């Protein structure tokens, strides 16, 4: 880690649902905290949080195991969902404006399949501006 980088969210994968690979084929990765209702486990990567300070902003980096993806856009309800529920949807759609309020957009391309024990982290360089929700 270089200086000037803050980890705003840090968590460890505890389980990967059966339907996660099918969603990855659509360029979608869904996270939920491990206290989520059982009916959501199939479609989600479950995780246990260690750092929970903020949701992602455009320009932040999402670290999925060994892979690092830059955040291009963030929907309006992402921060609340992540901080309250550990819930986030990553979409590899390359959009710079989120289509749905729950989307976190990254470049088009493959998203890695995580495994139990992998890290899921969000880091921020200093001077990343706050999101404008006006």
């Amino acid at each position, binding site marked *: 880690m270089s200086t000037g980088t803050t980890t705003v969210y840090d968590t460890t994968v505890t389980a990967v649902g059966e339907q996660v690979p*099918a*969603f990855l084929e*659509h360029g979608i990765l869904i996270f939920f905290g491990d206290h989520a209702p059982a*009916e*959501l486990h199939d479609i989600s990567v479950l995780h246990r949080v260690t750092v929970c300070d903020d949701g992602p902003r455009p320009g932040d980096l999402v670290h999925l195991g060994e892979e690092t993806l830059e955040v291009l856009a963030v929907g*309006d309800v992402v921060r609340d969902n992540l901080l*309250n529920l550990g819930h986030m949807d990553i979409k590899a759609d390359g959009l710079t404006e989120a289509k749905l309020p*729950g989307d976190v957009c990254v470049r088009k391309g493959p998203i890695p399949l995580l495994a139990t024990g992998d890290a899921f982290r969000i880091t921020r360089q200093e001077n990343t501006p706050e999101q404008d929700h006006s």
Partner: protein
Amino acid sequence: MSEYKSVVVSKGRGGWGGPLTVLPTDDRPLVASITGGGIHPVAQRIADLTGGQAFDGFKSSAPFDKIAVAVIDCGGTARVGVYPMKKVLTVDVHATSPAGPLAQFITEELFVSGVKPEDVQET
């Protein structure tokens, strides 16, 4: 035997789907709030008016077939599809429309969005 009353849940501003008629039964008494941070006001109002049992989905679990209605605060991908896929009536407090890989399961008969407490009315 409990006495249950039905309510109609209509879409709010910018919302989609519905209106849904929600009537809990002894077999399906639960008004599930899958929202985190406790029971959402929309779920509480449905429970108050119907006599159903409000329940925090992030604190305890219940089988799908016990849920009269699921109240979610979904940003449009995951929860919006999972509950309709199981044929559970679903109320999203955010104004979402069907999207994502589960969109095929989201129908006007099962789903309504953009809902505020005042969009829940006695019948």
